[in-house]
């Protein structure tokens, strides 16, 4: 087992006596905990036990109203990025990826803004504080992302690198000291502006270096000539502009943090710093700024790791520091598209990007509503995504048919036939229990489940046997091609058609249909006696309905049925039923014989005349 990166935090559950033994069970994103009576040391327990079961969630962010917008909007950006991946080539690729990164960041900022508004408007100080801390977490996330964008995605070379870093710091410094800015601005405005105007990269790095060198020397000359000796303020300003660290540190209150210090320092002493040299200055800036008074915070370590171009360390530290996988999942995915992550295989075979996306998506599936977003994330995990989706999607509670339809559509689009079948079966069973036979049939048609269609048809036939009439005629009369799904269903449809023919007095059609039902073997055994007895009224008609040939067929069927009939050995009611049946069959034999006679005569006489 790996060694732990940090000590696990202890969470106290209110209401549960921590001296008692607790039992727990893991869920997909949560844990169930309750008190038990195990380990009872004293025989008399005076304190009543805690009657509740607790649900412990690690990720509470998923339930934040405002963060939901972050999840939804970033989902759109994520899917868009995966889709344009194939089209990204050459020079435009980098620009596109930078644009995607900026999109993500603007979403974070919008969330931050809204959270800030809510924090200000919060009525009680506790929730106001909670919102404010969320705002600072989001702000830190944007800070880190922005730096990663500059260093890893934009891959700014020396020169423009400092400009980007300046923008970065400016964006994140909340309190800008206007005094310092004004003074800086007024002293050497022309030199500043013209120096930093880089028209379309026409100046090369060396030209820049030379210009800066010239300017730097001029400043030094001013200092040595004591030009500013009259005003200590201006003198310290000059020292600052020369990049004197001590002078800069004197203004520590104005520089909120060490990275502000770093960038200011670089601005005045090494404006053409190369990316690979950044980490040296970063480390020393951090040390100088903290001055041994305080230790670096997690954010500082993350930024340092970024300056060292250690992407894996950045991601690892972020994963530990943040409570939600959102940030690391999306950032890693974007960096993977920049082809910056080596296939760093983890113990269970998938790479880091996939691992993080899987974790994030699983967290979404634990949410009652955001599971729909999780589907797309699983789609873009080539190794374990499909399997994970199959497991998760079957466990979504289906409270309405509309939700079930959406889940089914997701499964069908991904050819998950097993899941389609199992979901349709569950819904069909529920429908049968609620006596919604039409719905049940509709589900079995969708799943192409012949076995279930047979079950539904048997239900209808059973109802008919008990009541003597069909329920839900609107369904049976209008089965259409769905009739072919199962033999039993076909039989049901055809039998109903037979009834219709009889009702419409289309007797010859009814007769041939009845016969074909018996000879084609699709009628269930239990129904044969009913079919045979249905032939009786046709045989009793004034005109001859069954031809001689058909009568022979019927007789054969009758004898077939009679010989294979199960013999009931129990006395009582079943005996009575058997007697009734025997009587009916006798009547049938008589009717058949009579019909045969009439049919032969009729056919014979026609030929004769």
């Amino acid at each position, binding site marked *: 087992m790996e060694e732990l990166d940090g000590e696990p935090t202890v969470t106290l559950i209110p209401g549960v006596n921590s001296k008692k033994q607790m039992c727990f069970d893991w869920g997909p994103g949560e844990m169930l905990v309750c008190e038990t009576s195990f380990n009872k040391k004293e025989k008399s327990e005076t304190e009543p036990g805690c009657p509740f079961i607790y649900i412990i969630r690690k990720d509470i962010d998923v339930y934040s109203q405002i963060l*939901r917008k972050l999840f939804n909007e970033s989902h759109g950006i994520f899917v868009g990025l995966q889709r344009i991946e194939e089209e990204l080539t050459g020079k435009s690729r980098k620009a596109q990826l930078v644009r995607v990164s900026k999109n993500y960041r603007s979403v974070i900022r919008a969330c931050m803004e809204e959270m800030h508004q809510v924090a200000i408007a919060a009525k009680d100080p506790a929730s106001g504080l909670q919102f404010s801390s969320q705002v600072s977490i989001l702000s830190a996330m944007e800070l880190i992302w922005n730096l990663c964008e500059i260093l890893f995605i934009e891959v700014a070379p020396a020169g423009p690198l400092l400009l980007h870093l300046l923008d970065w710091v400016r964006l994140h410094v909340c309190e800008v000291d206007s005094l310092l800015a004004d003074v800086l601005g007024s002293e050497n405005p022309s030199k500043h502006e013209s120096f930093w105007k880089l028209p379309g990269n026409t100046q090369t790095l060396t030209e820049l270096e030379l210009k800066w060198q010239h300017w730097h020397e001029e400043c030094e000359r001013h200092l040595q000539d004591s030009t500013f000796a009259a005003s200590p303020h201006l003198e310290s300003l000059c020292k600052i502009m020369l990049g004197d660290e001590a002078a800069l540190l004197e203004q520590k209150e104005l520089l909120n943090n060490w990275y502000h210090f770093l960038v200011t320092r670089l601005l005045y002493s090494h404006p053409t710093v190369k990316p690979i040299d950044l980490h040296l200055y970063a480390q020393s800036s951090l040390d100088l700024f903290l001055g041994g008074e305080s230790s670096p915070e997690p954010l500082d370590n993350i930024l340092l790791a970024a300056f060292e171009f250690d992407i894996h360390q950045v991601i690892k530290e972020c994963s530990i520091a943040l409570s939600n996988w959102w940030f690391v999942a999306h950032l890693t995915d974007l960096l993977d598209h920049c082809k910056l992550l080596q296939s760093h295989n983890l113990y269970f075979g998938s790479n880091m990007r996939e691992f993080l996306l899987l974790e994030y998506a699983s967290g979404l599936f634990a949410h009652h509503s955001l599971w729909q977003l999780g589907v797309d994330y699983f789609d873009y995990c080539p190794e374990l995504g499909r399997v994970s989706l199959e497991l998760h999607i079957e466990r979504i509670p289906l409270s309405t048919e509309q939700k079930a339809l959406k889940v089914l*559509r997701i499964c069908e689009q991904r050819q998950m036939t097993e899941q389609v079948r199992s979901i349709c079966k569950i819904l069909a069973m529920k429908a049968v229990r609620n006596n919604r036979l039409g719905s049940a049939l*509709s589900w079995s048609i969708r799943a192409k489940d012949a076995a279930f269609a047979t079950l539904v048809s048997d239900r209808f036939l059973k109802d008919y046997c008990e009541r003597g009439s069909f329920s839900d005629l609107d369904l049976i009369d209008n089965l259409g091609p769905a009739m072919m799904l199962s033999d039993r269903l076909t039989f049901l449809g055809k039998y109903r058609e037979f009834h219709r023919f009889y009702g419409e007095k289309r007797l010859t059609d009814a007769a041939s249909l009845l016969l074909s039902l018996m000879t084609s073997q699709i009628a269930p055994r239990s129904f044969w006696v009913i079919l045979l007895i249905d032939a009786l009224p046709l045989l009793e008609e004034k005109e001859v309905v069954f031809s001689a040939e058909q009568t022979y067929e019927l007789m054969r069927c009758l004898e077939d049925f009679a010989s294979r009939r199960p013999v009931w050995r129990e006395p009582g009611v079943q005996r009575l039923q058997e007697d009734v049946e025997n009587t009916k069959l006798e009547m049938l034999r008589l009717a058949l014989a009579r019909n045969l006679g009439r049919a032969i005569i009729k056919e014979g006489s026609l030929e004769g005349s």
Partner: protein
Amino acid sequence: MEDIYAKFVSQKISKTRWRPVPPGSLQTADTFAVGSWDNEENYVSLWSIGDFGNLDSDGGFEGDHQLLCDIRHHGDVMDLQFFDQERIVAASSTGCVTVFLHHPNNQTLSVSQQWTAAHYHTGPGSPSCGSAPCTGIVCSNPEIVTVGEDGRINLFRVDHKEAVRTIDNADSSTLHAVTFLRTPEILTVNSIGQLKIWDFRKQGNEPSQILSLTGDRVPLHCVDRHPNQQHVVATGGQDGMLSIWDVRQGTMPVSLLKAHEAEMWEVHFHPSNPDHLFTCSEDGSLWHWDASTDVPEKSSLFNQGGRNSSFLSHSISSQTNVHQSLISSWLSTDPAKDRIEITSLLPSRTLSVNSLDVLGPCLVCGTDSEAIYVTRQLFS
């Protein structure tokens, strides 16, 4: 069609409906109602797109829609309809039908009336209090008709505690949607691909007419009647197919148009420009179907909204033939002659678009990506 505003609202949207403008008024739509689903706490809310006059410091909220008020709703909002200017009827997945009242002076919503067990299951295996989702509502002051997964049709009247009429087991499958044909007649669609017409004047529990698709019995999810021609009806199915029916003629659809790649959730004729039809689907797209023809001799009659049909009905004796030849590009079966122009209105693919509504030049729709889209320039 550029100005479409999107706003993420932290809840999956199941229904969006414009508040009707008072008849004869020149106002355009400015308020819409929204229902959510699949949340632990669902809400029915009212939003406004009125011009605010004041721009925020960010300058970006000028055209945005703002929340006016909301109220908790038990269960998913399965359907939503405005009963009149102040009242909204909501159908719940718990089988309950609620009438909400909007108080404009203090901008709140309250429950005005509720029928709690409008839809329920009574099978041999269902629990004794087995509720069934109510799937569709249609209102025509003072009546409200509801249908549900229990295959039941209810006729309610506002301020009556019990249902005025209930047709139990009207259908053996789920009824997905309902609309009025003429006031005593309604039309329902179900999950075995059938349209059934019911006449409330008749006693008994049988439909007066059944129409169905040939071929596979694809479930039908939505239905809308042509605003002027009460016999023309459009339905959308599970396979994304749009069908146009003439209920007076035959039992089969007049035209079948392959539309979306997944379930079509809603279909709407534009109430004042019925040559325009709108559909939205699970595949994340919203389509605008424009069947208005540019042929000069026809256009002057058609583009005047509802006046053509009343004009003609006075002067002809045999309605069927003349109607067929003159009106409704929807009923024409000649695809080459009357081409339909189809435009996709949403800027990018999203998750399912569950609902849409059109009124005048305004369109609103809601998606499973928890976003509401509004545009005020449909026909620009």
